[in-house]
């Protein structure tokens, strides 16, 4: 692993450890980047999965790695779910793999529009279906 990358991860780990208030860390994409320096200081990992097999499979591997690191709460959260069939497939996969699926965020045109405009979805449409599901997750599982 490259030295400066190692340093970035170490500084994030050290800051997260010493910070006494909540933190949300947008991790590097990809399972190969999961690092103990960051992982050992978080209470919870949310693994974002999409409703297709490769994404769910990768997510299951990330979750497994997170458990091996000793992260206490390992959850899956689905994104871009387009239909009841998608939702069923996500739930079935997570059940089979012992993953706790804490939310299913629907595919949402408001998110795409916000992306196109370069604004936050919360500032574009805070009543959109994706935001409502994330708000439910926060209230019910993260507080």
């Amino acid at each position, binding site marked *: 692993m490259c030295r400066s990358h190692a340093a970035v991860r170490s*500084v994030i780990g050290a800051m997260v450890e010493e910070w006494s208030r909540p933190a*949300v*860390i*947008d991790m590097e*994409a990809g399972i190969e980047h999961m690092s103990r320096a960051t992982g050992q200081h978080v209470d*919870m990992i949310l693994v974002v999965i999409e409703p297709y097999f490769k994404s769910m499979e990768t997510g299951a591997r990330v979750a497994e790695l997170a458990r091996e690191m000793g992260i206490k709460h390992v959850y899956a959260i689905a994104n871009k779910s387009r239909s009841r069939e998608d939702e069923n497939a996500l739930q079935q996969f997570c059940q089979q793999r012992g993953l706790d699926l804490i939310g299913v965020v629907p595919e949402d045109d408001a998110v795409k529009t916000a*992306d196109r405009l370069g604004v*936050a979805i919360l500032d574009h449409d805070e009543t959109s279906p994706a935001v409502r599901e994330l708000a439910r997750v926060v209230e019910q599982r993260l507080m």
Partner: protein
Amino acid sequence: MKIAVAGKGGSGKTTIAGTLARLLAREGQKGVLAIDADSNPNLALTLGLERERLDNLTRIPREVIERDAATNRWVLTRAVDEIVREHGVAAPDGVTLLLMGWVEHAGAG
């Protein structure tokens, strides 16, 4: 609560991370940090910082860590509160964004 959000590129991981940070703050959590650990940083945008500001955001300088000679481990050179106060970026709903300042050079090793 310290929450890591992981996932493949394109999965919407960053949108979820940024939105969750703001929703936690809206629920009354004080001092929520949003940390961009991705080498392709987009968290600022999904947190709702103005596009015009994106190129000029304060970043965490390299000097906040050093190798401890005795243990050979990376350690912070200053208190985290001080680092956040000086180098954090104020985002909507009272969230503070932390951006790593030297990620772009990482490829050079």
